[in-house]
């Protein structure tokens, strides 16, 4: 194996290891490593990669790492960088999961988590509003999130169906307007 495999694995392992908050918090760190330090990707190309990785499903940081790995060493390179990004998370969470199962009945830990749970629900509520702002909802589109949420919440419809239908509708709408 060439040194580049190991180097790219190590770089993305470091990125996965030291970014708290995940996702978009990782962009500046990825740019610093991949563009400025190693010069694997040009700055303009990086902007394109970010845009494409955002429009694709899946974990954003993993998507970026696959692009860079593929560019360096084709499929095997992509596997190395994806592995590098995921491995720190995997190992840390595994250690916590094994550890936590022994302590979840501890009254101190249990009390802390009774306080944490409502806060975490709020943490999921916050991006709802932030995303609503960046989606630039108006009186013609505001019903989409409302109907989607009600279908999932009250009717038990799978979010996967909502995604598929919304994507197809957007596509058809684009076609209609284009003509």
């Amino acid at each position, binding site marked *: 194996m060439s040194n580049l495999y190991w180097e790219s694995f190590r770089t993305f392992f470091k990125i996965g290891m030291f970014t708290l908050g*995940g996702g978009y918090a990782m962009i500046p760190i990825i740019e610093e490593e991949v563009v400025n330090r190693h010069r694997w990707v040009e700055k303009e190309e990086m902007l394109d990669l970010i845009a494409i990785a955002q429009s694709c499903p899946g974990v954003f940081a993993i998507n970026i790492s*696959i692009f860079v790995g593929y560019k360096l060493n084709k499929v095997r390179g*992509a596997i190395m960088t994806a592995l590098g990004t995921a491995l720190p998370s995997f190992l840390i969470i595994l250690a916590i*999961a094994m550890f936590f199962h022994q302590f979840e009945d501890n009254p101190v830990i249990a009390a*802390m988590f009774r306080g944490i749970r409502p806060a975490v629900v709020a943490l*999921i509520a916050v991006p709802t509003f932030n995303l609503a702002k960046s989606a630039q909802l108006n009186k013609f589109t505001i019903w989409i999130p409302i109907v989607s949420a009600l279908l999932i919440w009250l009717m038990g419809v799978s979010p996967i169906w909502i995604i598929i239908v919304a994507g197809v509708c957007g596509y058809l709408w684009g076609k209609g307007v284009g003509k």
Partner: protein
Amino acid sequence: MIFLYLFITFFEIGLFGFGGGYGMLSLIQHETVEHWHWMTSAEFTDIVAISQMTPGPIGINSATYAGYTAVKNAGYSVPLAVLGSATATFALVLPSLILMVLISRMFMKYMQTRTVHSIFLGLRPAVVGLLAAATLLLMTPENFSTPTDNLWQFGVSCFLFLASFYGVLIVKINPIRMILYSALAGLVLLY
């Protein structure tokens, strides 16, 4: 059998997980809690809390943890639970690997076109709905208690929810710090 279901479920989540980590959480929540009953909504909430506080992408963190918990809850041993977390994480990443390689190979030039743009015109508002639904589905007695069950805990929970919401959205307090504050509040008020 649970490993096969874990694989299929997390492959689907990886394939349809648009809208970043939190968008993916609503899919994980629906599949693991509502559909398969692999865990309770309180367990899922704990997983989100821990995924937020540890380094790395929240999607990978929560898939690893959910895979572990699902197998453990089904009554299997720790090594098998480790295998469960590996299965979930691998299945989550696999669609990305396939899609990204395909795009790198041949579809790069199609990605920033009007068609993709118009698909996202529909997707973005829907993801807002997904997150709203995840929030509503997590407002359970397990996470908040109920006024009849334990009025004090219910009141404290509602206060912590509103305080965290206001703190993170308006005051822009770091989410990890907010989790630590509420852990402290839980320790003092709900011990």
